[in-house]
């Protein structure tokens, strides 16, 4: 009996030594849920089929992936990061991205000019932040940003607490300012406070709030709105008449210090190809960056889908990335102190 105990203990001590080591795979940092599933299905599988290298994913929110990257600086735990174009600037200023080698990204030649956000960031797809609501729970049609301030919407609205850029900019625009003179919209925003019933920190929470009907009107990413429709929730995406939806472009970057720069570039190049871009646009219902990608006719003119320079101008408000990145901490602080609390 004692002998058995001793053997069992020794065996148990040996187990820890069996380090959990990853196979030789490419690690991609991306948002969870629908985003990871789509990147995995559309780009990841194609990449593995082509190169034989498996793809793994590190999921999380925009800001906490940045925090993790900062801590792992110089010895990154991931090889590629998907992030929003303005938060990408925060990565750049921290020296976390490696410059892209355009020679290894031949497909980039087919992409729109706006896609190359900087020498470190290659846009993958575009969308807008707009108003998404449930017509079955909100009878009066919503057609403009200013409709959010309707008294009948008191206690019905939800918006993200991790990035207030969109609503801050819209409020500023309404007062004749813009993202640089954002203070002009402060009083407007405070007036909106009673209408907000919840703030969501993750996409999943936003979807929960919509599904349960707790927050039937939300400032939401167009892609997430379409995802809800796919799941069977009848929501309407608004193309606001007073001010355009606020554009977002998610970008791919290679981490500084990665040992798989070659594979990383191959992955990004694949993601920019006509075929993959067509698939991505269809799967996410987002705007492709490759001009040659085919977008189903049913999507033309839909919120977040831009096919011509004219469409970009009319239906998309693009916040200056640098201004946005610079102001984001101040925006978050003011927003948390004055609106969330």
């Amino acid at each position, binding site marked *: *009996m*004692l002998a058995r*105990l001793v053997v*069992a*203990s020794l*065996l*148990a*001590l040996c*187990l*820890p*030594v*069996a*380090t*959990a*080591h*990853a196979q030789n795979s490419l690690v991609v940092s991306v948002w*969870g*849920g629908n985003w*990871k599933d789509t990147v995995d299905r559309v780009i990841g599988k194609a990449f593995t089929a082509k190169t034989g290298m498996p793809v*793994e994913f*590190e*999921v999380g929110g925009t800001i906490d992936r940045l925090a993790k990257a900062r801590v792992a600086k110089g010895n990154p735990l991931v090889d590629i990061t998907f992030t929003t174009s303005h938060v990408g600037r925060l990565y750049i200023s921290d020296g976390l991205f490696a410059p892209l080698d355009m020679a290894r990204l031949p497909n980039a030649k087919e992409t729109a000019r706006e896609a190359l956000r900087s020498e470190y960031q290659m846009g993958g797809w575009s969308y807008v932040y707009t108003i998404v609501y449930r017509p079955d729970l909100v009878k009066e049609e919503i057609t403009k940003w200013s409709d959010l301030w309707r008294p009948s919407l008191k206690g019905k609205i939800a918006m993200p607490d991790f990035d207030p850029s969109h609503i801050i900019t819209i409020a500023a625009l309404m007062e004749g300012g813009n993202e640089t003179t954002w203070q002009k919209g402060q009083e407007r925003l405070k007036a909106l406070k009673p209408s907000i019933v919840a703030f969501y920190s*993750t*996409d*999943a929470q936003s*979807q*929960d709030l919509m*599904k349960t009907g707790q927050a039937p009107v939300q400032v939401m990413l167009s892609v997430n709105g379409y995802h809800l429709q796919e*799941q*069977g*929730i009848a929501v309407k995406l608004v193309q606001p008449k007073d001010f355009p939806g606020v554009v977002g472009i998610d970008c791919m970057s290679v981490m500084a210090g990665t040992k798989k720069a070659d594979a990383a570039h191959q992955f990004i190049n694949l993601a920019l190809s006509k075929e993959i871009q067509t698939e991505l646009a269809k799967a996410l219902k987002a705007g492709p960056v490759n001009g040659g990608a085919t977008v189903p006719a049913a999507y033309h003119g839909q919120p977040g889908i831009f096919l011509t320079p004219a469409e970009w101008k009319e239906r998309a408000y693009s916040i200056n990335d640098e201004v946005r990145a610079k102001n984001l901490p101040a925006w978050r602080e003011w927003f948390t102190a004055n609106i969330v609390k």
Partner: protein
Amino acid sequence: MLRLAVLALLAFMTLPTVVVVAVSFNPTAILSFPPTGLSLRWYVNVVTYPQFQRAAWNSLLVTAGAVALAMPIGTAAALGLARGRPRAASLWATVLLSPLVVPGVAAGLGFLIVGAALGLLRSRSVLIAAHVALVLPFVVRSAWVSVRNLDPTLERAAASLGATPWRAFRRVTLPLLRPGLLAALLFAVIVSLNEFVVSLFISTRLTEILPVAMFTYVVNYTDPTIAALSTLFIVGTFLIVWLADRFLDLGGVFLHHR
């Protein structure tokens, strides 16, 4: 009157379980109760989702390792407590049971700091060490209850008949302790399998155990997959607890019999 109140309260306690099981069979991604149909797609998702497969394997390794270490250590400690003077034993018992009062986040962050300093976070060793520390109090407590009820004259009788201390332990003490040790094993396994907070702090994507993987999933997805996984958990533990009560008389462990 009392009966009604008790029934209502029991309903409150079990309602969530019923809802989870029902929702797990819903054919669509919308969580609806009663379910709009019967589908096993979420169960299929549970079994085929790579991160759950990896997490289940990690859970198995970590729990097996932790229990294999905690059982002999805890049993030895219980025997040691029983043999000491009562006051000393009480003091040592307090020390041994102290991890129970520490908040999970405190232990979790502490282990994270130590693990990072020693560079051990990429292996499962920190997880196993933490689980041993967390599970040991339960083993000691359960074993001690059993040990205290041992009749010391039996061991002495064996000795007087010529048995060596080890023989006496193996042939007399251990078999008598078996029910208590089985209860200790049960507690250890269940506590380790469900351990979440501390593990959340020290897990990485590659080493995370099942509860941590479930938490990550809930935070990122809104489909009923976790309902399916929860149902599997619930069925499993109901079985174990029911069996334990039948064979180990759990009532005797918790209540005073008259």
